[in-house]
């Protein structure tokens, strides 16, 4: 097939462990350079790595959730290359036997992205420059990051558009959040992107940092390749850099001069078995994942599928819906969580899980909506205030006399009553007397004790009298 787009990703995700992969330095805390370091993550002579078991368990959970084949034993290798961000001039990674092989991540009913492998490795240090890397008179090294635990997820080139790559990244982040192995606020996602439009040769874009940057880099590269194909330029397989500032990729090296890493098994770390009981225990700890939530919401709770899908991308929201569904109609809860809560959160640039969310009061609000004690408009306004600063909603509604009837359901009822009780006015209206409608509106307004807008009542009356 000509002009087919092939995209494969190698994604580095930082696991949210308290300590680094091979020493007991904290992964978070002081941001002052080189304060979270020890002889091991500084690569001092005589220091030795000790494997962080929590990191292994988190990585294994990801492998299990993605249906990978799990390696029978844990082996680490040394990947040797000289670079100033490398404390030992080799990186401890997995080469011979990755933790997981195969597996896949589902995008939709009929679309899955196959994985090649998932493995663990340590993060190098970070480099700091004065201004741009090219112009800086010096390079400073900060080893705070050195030794942070990473997992690398390598996909097959199963994505055929930048949109599919975006969907995949979204699904992956959702999965990581469900597994609680990644902290989106402090963790970094980096990727090497393999992309080409056939018959253009495969191009690898190195070190793209962040979800949105990955998308940008792919889009730029696809348009660049399209242009080259149009101009019939000759190209060979090569590696490119992503320049985020300029939004372009630039040539790094051709595949013929590919790096030589001289892998050996790291003799400082013993080979350990990954046992069945260990895997059984981790399996039992796996949470219900997004797909299972969607199923549950649509099948058991009868929530509309689009609500279910969107809510399930956020674990905290999905769990909120589960609890809300026990108090009010699930579909009503779903609608309000998906539309209104989401809207207010987005406006405030907040995530539900980061919020000190007053769930009981939120449920009270839903109940008031369900009973039509307050109008949707009132509820929306209350929610907006509530997210900024929680308060006792029921009391507030009572105190401020916000019990209102302005939603069409209740209004319709009052309108029908008014029509029934005033057959003369109805007849007058039907024979062309517009003033009779004003009279009927007045009757309805009296019934709602003034808590309705005349325009809305007017509209309902007109449609009922058609």
């Amino acid at each position: 097939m000509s002009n087919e787009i092939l995209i494969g990703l190698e994604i580095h995700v930082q696991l949210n462990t308290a300590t680094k992969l091979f020493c007991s330095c904290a992964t978070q805390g002081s941001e002052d350079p080189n304060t979270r370091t020890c002889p091991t993550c500084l690569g001092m002579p005589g220091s030795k790595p000790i494997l962080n078991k929590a990191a292994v368990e988190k990585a294994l959970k990801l492998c299990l959730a993605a249906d990978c084949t799990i390696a029978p034993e844990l082996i680490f290798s040394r990947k040797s290359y000289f670079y100033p961000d490398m404390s030992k001039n080799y990186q401890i990674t997995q080469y011979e036997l990755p933790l997981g092989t195969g597996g896949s991540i589902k995008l939709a009913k009929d679309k899955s992205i196959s994985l090649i492998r998932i493995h663990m490795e340590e993060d190098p240090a970070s480099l700091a420059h004065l201004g741009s890397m090219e112009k800086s008179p010096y390079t400073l090294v900060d080893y705070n990051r050195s030794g942070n635990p990473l997992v690398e997820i390598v996909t097959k080139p199963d994505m055929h558009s930048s949109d599919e790559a975006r969907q995949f990244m979204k699904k992956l982040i959702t999965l990581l959040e469900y597994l609680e192995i990644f902290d989106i606020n402090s963790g970094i996602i980096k990727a090497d992107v393999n992309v080409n439009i056939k018959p253009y040769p495969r191009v690898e874009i190195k070190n793209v940092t962040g979800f949105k940057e990955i998308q940008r880099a792919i889009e730029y590269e696809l348009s660049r390749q399209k242009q080259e194909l149009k101009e019939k330029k000759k190209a060979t397989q090569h590696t490119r850099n992503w320049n985020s500032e300029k939004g372009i990729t630039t040539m790094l090296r051709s595949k013929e001069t590919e790096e030589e890493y001289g892998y050996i098994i790291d003799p400082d770390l013993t080979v350990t078995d990954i046992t069945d009981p260990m895997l059984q225990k981790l399996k039992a700890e796996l949470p219900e994942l997004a797909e299972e939530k969607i199923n549950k919401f649509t099948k058991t709770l009868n929530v509309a599928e689009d609500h279910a899908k969107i809510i399930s991308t956020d674990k905290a929201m999905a769990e909120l819906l589960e609890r809300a569904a026990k108090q009010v109609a699930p579909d009503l809860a779903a609608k309000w969580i998906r539309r209104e809560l989401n809207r207010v959160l987005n406006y405030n640039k907040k995530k539900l899980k980061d919020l000190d969310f007053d769930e009981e009061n939120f449920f009270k609000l839903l109940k008031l909506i369900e009973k039509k004690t307050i109008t949707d408009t009132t509820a929306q306004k209350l929610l907006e205030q509530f997210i900024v600063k929680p308060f006792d909603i029921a009391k507030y509604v009572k105190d401020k006399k916000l019990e209102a009837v302005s939603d069409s359901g209740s209004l319709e009822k009052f309108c029908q009553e008014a029509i029934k009780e005033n057959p003369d006015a109805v007849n007058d209206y039907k024979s062309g007397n517009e003033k009779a409608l004003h009279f009927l509106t007045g009757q309805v307004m009296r019934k709602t004790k003034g808590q309705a807008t005349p325009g809305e009542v007017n509209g309902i009356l007109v449609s009922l009298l058609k």
Partner: protein
Amino acid sequence: MPSVTTFVKKVHSGEINVVEHTAKVLQEAKKLNREYHYYNTICEPLAKQQARAIKKNPKGRLAGVPVSVKDAICVQGVESTAGSKILKGYKPLFDATVIQRLKKEGAIIIGKTAQDAFGFGSFSTNVGLDMKAPINPLDPTRACGGSSGGSAGITQLTQYPHLSLGESTGGSIAAPASFCGIPALCPTYGKISRYGLMDYANSLDKIGPMGKTIEDIALLLEIIAGHDPKDSTSLTSKTESYSKSLTKADHHIGIIKETLGKGTDPKIKDMVLNTIDESEIKHASVSLPLTQKYGVSTYFLLAMAEASTNLAKYCGMRYGKHETLKGSFNEYFSKVRSHNLNEESKRRIMIGTFARMAGYRDAFYLKATKIRTKIIEEYKKLFKTYDVLASPTMPIIAPTFKEIEKLTPLQHYMMDTMTVGPNLAGLPHMNVTIGEKDGMPVGLLLIADHEQESTLLKAAKVIENVE
């Protein structure tokens, strides 16, 4: 001279003034060092400070005992270079686990001993640039053996009770012990923590005790052996009180016939066979064909592959020798490494890097890891029948510096032919001096099964007692 145990008793009782004694030991060390070059660093302030502390509170199984430490083992605040110029000026921020254990028992660290840079050699002649090779205590024209040459030399020559820490990757404890005529033990891989040992080849490196008597090294072993959570490869099994188990036992010795053929000094061969005969230990001739054929090449491939990654960190960025910052990082790293690593270090980095390069690693590095497993099996099979295996430690007596100069790198590597086997297999082994040839000591190598250090020490004691 009193044994270490007798000396410690006198320290405990106050009969020996540790401060005065340590001053004498330091004075001797400095004097001998001018002539014999046993120490890269003599840590006088630390030793004196420790001595004062012990005098105040004379406790510990090694109270006041002078200990010299191979330079590759980190001592906090004391220059530790692993015998290489590239680490000149480097003072570790932490003590190796073995040093912590020694200090806890009241030992006094006298200094860091001379060695082949990073352990790369069999004679301690491959010392760092601008450093001097240690000289054999029994004949100044001859070498000490390596790579723990300084440790062996000072242990033989000092007139005071003394213990020393050596380190062996392919024979670096047994070889200098044989050439200098002292007992020394290289333990089962993992028996003594490597935390704080500057790596040569991590899957082979073992710290081990060297001393004037078998009793002394049994005591030192008992103190430094045992599990360490800071070293992933550390064994979790319990240690025994080796010093109390030096009783006679019925052993069955297998004499490795391949070590007695061509290349071995016939006089040494006769001495080994006679000694075992006279010991009246039951013995038989055994064969290790695979080890004989592939031992040296397997050892060097693995050791150099690992070493070439271990030495990558020495690039003048964080510690040790620096140079003026100029050019790209690659140019800078190359400059620091070119100027400060010696020839043998460069040779091993190059061979080791080659052995693990794509396209070669299957044929060299990976094949060597497989053969190593086979070699272990070959030994294990013999240990079903025999308690201990025996061979000469070295095929020759300590060579003169002139003779060493004439050796090609390959002839140099072949010197380890008897010691690489047990080192590759991670088996405990030790050198026992059995006599002299031309006034130079001759050593017998005993090898036991994994974690059978007690058996090894008992057999050594029997061999030592042969008149």
